[in-house]
C-alpha cells in the first residue's frame, strides 16, 4: 500500500530532518574541535604529590597539547597515580626514557603534565604502561642549579675587596694620596711659577674633585656591603624559619619556586618581546582582514553601524557671563 502524505506532514518531516542535520553537523564540528572522534591511548604515571592535578588537566609534549588527565587517585603506598589519555598519533614518542613532570603556569591557569619525549633507541611504552616521572623542583634545587649561593658569596667578597680598596684610597697616608702629596712636593718649585702647569697643580679644585670622587666611591661601596649583609641576614632568617616552621616554609618555598621560574621566564620573554610584538601586530592585521571579509557578508552588513562621518564643530557662545 502506497502511503500518502499531506503538505503539512511533508513540511513537518522536512523541518525535523533539517533540525537533525543541523544538530549532527554541530556535534561533528564541536566534537572535531574537542578531539572526541580521535583515538587515544591510556597511560599512567605516579608522583609523590598531586600538585593540584585534576581530571581534565592538560597533558603536553614539548609544550603542545596532546591529551588530558582522566583520573587522579592515591595508591596503597601513598603515591598519586595519574591516568592520562594521549592522542594515538603521539603515542610512538612516549618511550621508556620519556619523563613526565608537573609544570605550573606562569601567572594564570592550572598545573599540567609535561612529557619529555624519549629517544628513538628506547622502546615505546605500551598502552596502559607507566611513564617515568620526575618530581617538581624545589627552591633549594634551583639554588643549586643556578649556583646562587656561590655567586652571592663571590659578590660579597668582591664588595669587601672594593670597600678595602676605597679605604686605602681615602687614607691621606695611603698609597694614592701619599703619591699625590709627593707629587705636590716635587712640584713645589712649580708652585711659585706663573705657567699653566703651575696653575693647574696649584689649583685646589683638582684635589677637591678627587676627594669628592673617592668619597662617593666609598659611600657606594658601603651601601653595597650593607646590601650584601642584608642578603646574608635574609638567608639566615630563611634557614632559621626552615627549622622552626617547616609547613610555612614549604609554602613559601613553593611560592619562591614559582617566582624564580617566573623570573627565568620573564628574562627569556624580555629577549623575545620585539618578536612577540611583531607577531601580535601580524595577528591583529590578520584579524582585521578577517573582520573586513566578515563585514562584506550580506547577512552581517545590514547590522553594522553606518560608516563614520566626520563633521565640523563650531563654538557657540552660551550663557550670559561670556
Amino acid at each position, binding site marked *: 500500500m502506497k502511503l*500518502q502524505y*499531506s*503538505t*503539512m506532514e*511533508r*513540511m513537518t518531516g*522536512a523541518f525535523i530532518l533539517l533540525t537533525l542535520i543541523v544538530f549532527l553537523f554541530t556535534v561533528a564540528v564541536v566534537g572535531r574541535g574537542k578531539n572526541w572522534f580521535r583515538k587515544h591511548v591510556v597511560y599512567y604515571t605516579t608522583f609523590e604529590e598531586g600538585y593540584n592535578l585534576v581530571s581534565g588537566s592538560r597533558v603536553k609534549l614539548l609544550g603542545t597539547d596532546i591529551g588530558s588527565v582522566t583520573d587522579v587517585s592515591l595508591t596503597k603506598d601513598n603515591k598519586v597515580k595519574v591516568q592520562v589519555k594521549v592522542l594515538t598519533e603521539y603515542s610512538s614518542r612516549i618511550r621508556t626514557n620519556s619523563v613526565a613532570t608537573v609544570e605550573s603556569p606562569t601567572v594564570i591557569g592550572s598545573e599540567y603534565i609535561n612529557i619529555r619525549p624519549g629517544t628513538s633507541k628506547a622502546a615505546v611504552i605500551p598502552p596502559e604502561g607507566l611513564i617515568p616521572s620526575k618530581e617538581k623542583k624545589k627552591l633549594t634545587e634551583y639554588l643549586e642549579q643556578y649556583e646562587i649561593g656561590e655567586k652571592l658569596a663571590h659578590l660579597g667578597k668582591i664588595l669587601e675587596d672594593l670597600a678595602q680598596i676605597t679605604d686605602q684610597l681615602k687614607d691621606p697616608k695611603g698609597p694614592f694620596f701619599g703619591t699625590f702629596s709627593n707629587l705636590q712636593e716635587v712640584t713645589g718649585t712649580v708652585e711659585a711659577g706663573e705657567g699653566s702647569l703651575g696653575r693647574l697643580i696649584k689649583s685646589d679644585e683638582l684635589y677637591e674633585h678627587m676627594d669628592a670622587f673617592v668619597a662617593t666611591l666609598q659611600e657606594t661601596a658601603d651601601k653595597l656591603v650593607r646590601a650584601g649583609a642584608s642578603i646574608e641576614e635574609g638567608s639566615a632568617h630563611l634557614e632559621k624559619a626552615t627549622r622552626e616552621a617547616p609547613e610555612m616554609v614549604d609554602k613559601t618555598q613553593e611560592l619562591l619556586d614559582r617566582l624564580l621560574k617566573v623570573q627565568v621566564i620573564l628574562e627569556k620573554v624580555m629577549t623575545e618581546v620585539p618578536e612577540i610584538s611583531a607577531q601580535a601586530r601580524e595577528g591583529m592585521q590578520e584579524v582585521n582582514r578577517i573582520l573586513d571579509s566578515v563585514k*562584506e557578508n*550580506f*547577512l552581517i*552588513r*545590514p*547590522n*553594522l553601524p*553606518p*560608516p*563614520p*562621518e*566626520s*563633521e*565640523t*564643530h*563650531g*563654538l*557657540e*557662545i*552660551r*550663557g*550670559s*557671563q*561670556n
Partner: protein
Amino acid sequence: MFFHTSHRVDRKKTVAVLLALGALLLTLVVACGGGPKNKLPPRLTEVKRLAAEGSYWFERGCFKRAERYFYQALEASRLVDNLEEMVRAYNNLGAVALVQDHYVEAGEHLQKALEFNSLLQSASEEAFSLGNLGSLAFKAGRYQEAEKLWEKALVVAKKNPQKSGFAMHLNNLGMLRRKQGRFEEAESLLKRALARAENSGYRSTMANSHMQLGLVAEAQGDFARAEKQLSRALEIDRAAENAFGIAQDLEQIGRLRQQQQLWEKAFFNLDRAIRLYGILGKMEKVSQLYKLLEINKAQGEVPESLEPYEGLLVPPDEFWVSPLCR
C-alpha cells in the same frame, strides 16, 4: 486532526509550494542583506573614524580627548592629502582650543583652516572658520570684530545653510545683540536660529536659542517668559544628555530665581549646577557658582553652610580626568 482526501494536494503542488517558500525566503534575505557598503578607501575611512571619535568626545565636553583625536585625524588626512578632511580637522582643532581658552592656538588653527580652504573653496568650512574666529574675537573682548566675522560667516553659510552652522552663527549674533541691549533684533535673530535648528535637529543649538531667548526676556523683566524658555532649554539638554548644557541651564535658572528673590528655588538649581560643574572640572564656573551660593546664603539663608562646596573649589591635579571622559 485529519484532512479530507479532497484537501490533499499532489506531489507537484507540494514541490511548487516549497519552491515558492524558498524563493520568498531568498528574496527576503537578499532584500535585507543589501545594506550600504562602505565604498571609501581604508585610510580615508580611518580619517573619518578618528574625526567622528573626536566629535563624540567634543560633544561630551571631553575636550582634551577630542583634541587628541582631531590631531590624529589631521595627521591621517595629510597621509592621503585629503584637503577637505584637513580643513575640517583644523577647524575642529580651532574649536576645541577655543573652548579650552587656548586663544593663540585656536587662532593659528583657524587661520590654517582658512588658508587650506582657499584651495578647497568649501563654503561650509569657510563659514565655520569665520564663525569660530568670531567666537575667538568675542571671547577676547573684541566685540566689533566678532560681529563682523559672524555676519561674514552668515553670508558665506547661506551658500550651504544645512551644513555650515547657519543657526549657530545666528545664535551668536543674537547673543551679541542681546548684550548690546538691542533686544528686538536679538529676539528676531534667535527665533530664526531656533527655527533653523529645529529644522536640522541640532539640539545643542536649539537649547542655546531657548536659553538666549530666556535671557532676553529676563533682561526685559518678563520673568515668566524667561522661566519658560530656560526650562525648555533644560528639557532639550536633558534629552540630549548634554552635561555641560544642563549645568549652564541650571545656572541660568538659578540666577533667574535669585533675581526673583526665590532663594530656596534658586538654591536647588545652583546646588545641582555647581556639583555638575565640579564633575566636569570647570573650575572657573565652580568659583562663579560659589559666589552665587554665598549671595543665596546671605540673602535667603539657604544653604545653611557653604562647607559642602568648599571641596569643589580645590583645583584638580593635572592627571584628573572627568568621570564622563574616562
